[in-house]
């Protein structure tokens, strides 16, 4: 693994200038990234690298393939290598191999989950059946030609997983807004139903406003995360009506659905999902009806206001009236949803936010460890005191100032739970409506 010889390296394909794409893998800037992702075919051909040009580091891909192959010969599977402060995590999903090399402190299972999301992102572009078929035909296939132009979404997923706790929690975030308004908006969507419409969603791009579904089908949070990533990964949807095939792997990994995507107000995006690839104009009509319905009820303007507030965080930790509480994550296990306040001081900077998420991840990992899982965890850290609390109904992770006593934390946490209960129906979607309700 020594050299590279070229004078014409162009990373500019599909109009997307990959951030970090020109980075030279022989420099310290490349090696010092805290978390690398690599995706390769099981033949060892590069498909994607989070940093640098994946074809330049094809030698590394070869090494990865050789390591995996060595163990595969003994019917063994390489899962994780811990070397100093680095952790190498492998996810083998033949015909793809996914590898993370990280010194972020995240656990093996957390990193493997993230690799699973990257895999799902690729499936959402190709479908599982199509990908399997291609590699059955040609195991030397260079997949980059087919996923070309969608690397932007792998990049954005990598970024999102560093800041958005939904992946760790396996839950989605809802836009904080009064239940009454949410119900009314849902009713407008419900009444606009046409035959090929499967799901109708309003999102902010990463928070759910409401979701209409058939009674027999729910939507898996993992699929919703892919949708959130699609919207937050590219600004292209903000300017026009879009129509795109998308495979939602948890819904059905063998086929495409088709998504109509259109922003109906600032930060308010409508997604209409249909199994019928020819239903663009029907979906466009649905949107028209919904927009008219929302405008007539004066709802669009207030939606826009809540979406703007929601993008900042929806509510502030001060709203809870608990001094000493800095931030928290609350997940309703029944609803597979979570809520959290705005990230304000001392978590206003990106690096502070990342650090806080790592704290939450450490707590989460410790509490859900297979051997000796915990129900309650009190942790005094250098910069904050943390509480983790897991019951059958909820998970709570809360950050307090560094000098708070255990009894004070317990008292404040109980107070916080009471506050959440009271606000629950604006923080979460407790009654997700189905289309049948509006028949």
């Amino acid at each position, binding site marked *: 693994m*020594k*050299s*590279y*010889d*070229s004078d*014409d390296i162009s990373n500019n*394909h*599909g*109009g997307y200038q990959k951030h970090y794409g020109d980075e030279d893998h022989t420099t310290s800037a490349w090696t010092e990234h805290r978390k690398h992702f690599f995706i390769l075919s*099981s*033949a*060892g*051909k*590069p498909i994607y690298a989070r940093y640098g040009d994946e*074809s330049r580091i*094809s*030698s*590394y*891909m*070869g*090494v990865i393939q*050789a390591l*995996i*192959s*060595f*163990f*595969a*010969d003994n019917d063994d599977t390489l899962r994780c290598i811990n070397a100093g402060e680095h952790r190498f995590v492998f996810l083998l999903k033949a015909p793809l191999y996914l590898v993370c090399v990280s010194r972020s402190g995240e656990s093996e299972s957390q990193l493997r989950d993230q690799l699973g999301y990257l895999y799902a992102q690729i499936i959402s572009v190709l*479908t599982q*059946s*199509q990908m399997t078929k*291609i590699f059955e*035909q040609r195991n*030397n*296939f*260079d997949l*980059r*030609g087919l996923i*070309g*132009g969608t690397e932007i979404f792998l990049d954005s997923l990598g970024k999102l997983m560093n800041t958005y706790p939904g992946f760790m929690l396996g839950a*989605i975030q809802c836009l904080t807004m009064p239940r009454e308004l949410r119900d009314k908006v849902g009713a407008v969507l419900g009444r606009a139903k046409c035959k090929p419409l*499967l799901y109708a969603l309003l999102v902010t791009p990463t928070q*759910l406003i409401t979701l209409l579904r058939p009674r*027999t*089908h*729910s*939507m*898996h949070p993992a699929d919703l995360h892919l949708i959130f990533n699609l919207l937050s990964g590219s600004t292209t949807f903000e300017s026009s009506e879009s129509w795109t095939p998308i495979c939602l792997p*948890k819904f*059905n990994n063998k*086929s*495409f659905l088709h998504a109509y995507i259109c922003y109906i107000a600032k930060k308010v995006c409508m997604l209409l999902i249909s*199994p*019928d690839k020819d239903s663009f104009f029907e979906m466009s009509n649905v949107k028209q009806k919904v927009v008219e319905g929302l405008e007539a009820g004066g709802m669009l303007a207030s939606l826009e206001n809540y979406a703007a507030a929601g993008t900042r965080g929806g509510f502030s930790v001060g709203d809870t009236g608990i001094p000493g509480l800095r931030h928290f994550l609350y997940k309703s296990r*029944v*609803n*597979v*949803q979570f809520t959290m306040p705005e990230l304000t001081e001392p978590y206003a900077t990106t690096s502070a936010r990342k650090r806080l998420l790592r704290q939450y991840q450490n707590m989460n990992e410790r509490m859900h460890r297979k051997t000796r899982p915990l129900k309650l965890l009190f942790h005094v850290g250098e910069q904050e005191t943390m509480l983790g609390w897991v019951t059958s109904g909820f998970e709570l992770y809360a950050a307090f100032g560094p000098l708070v006593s255990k009894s004070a934390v317990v008292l404040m946490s109980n107070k916080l739970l009471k506050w959440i209960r009271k606000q629950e129906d604006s923080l979460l*979607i407790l*009654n997700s409506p189905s289309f049948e309700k509006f028949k």
Partner: protein
Amino acid sequence: MASRKKVLLKVIILGESGVGKTSLMNQYVNKKFSNQYKATIGADFLTKEVLVDDRLVTMQIWDTAGQERFQSLGVAFYRGADCCVLVYDVNNAKSFETLESWRDEFLIQASPRGPENFPFVVIGNKIDMEESKRMISQKRAMAWCQSKGNIPYFETSAKEAINVEQAFQTIAKNALQQEVEVEIDFPDPIKIDSDTSKDFGCAC
């Protein structure tokens, strides 16, 4: 869809230990040669961009250890290769005689589609040595290559950089022929009514 990226070709180099596989690769990629022999441990990987018929491709060269044969790296290692280079030393009769088993083993392990048409290239290396030491004549080597379905044959010197560039140019060109388009068709649409109901326990 976005413009196509440079295609990447997987090239595997096989042959007895000491015939100069690593030296050939180093001469080709780094334009360097060392007289000192260092056995390759397991495998070594190098990348080079080449222009083939006005098309820029990336060659991912998998240099293997001669001594340990296939066992150490695992069957999957050879999967999805686009070209296999068989190297022997023209001054070493045994290294020529084992070419057949290297070829057979590659075909077994890599199990390519259409093994009879899989591109091999044979290289007789170390032609810089004095003529009296030569054990395998060009005629004999070419006859063998011909009998195996007209494998292209090159005589090279990694030390003196003779014919190395030409050999790899042919390797790249033949490897590229493996890159045929696959059929892409849209999978059947989902029929919602016939789908079994799914509930993930999510209220949404």
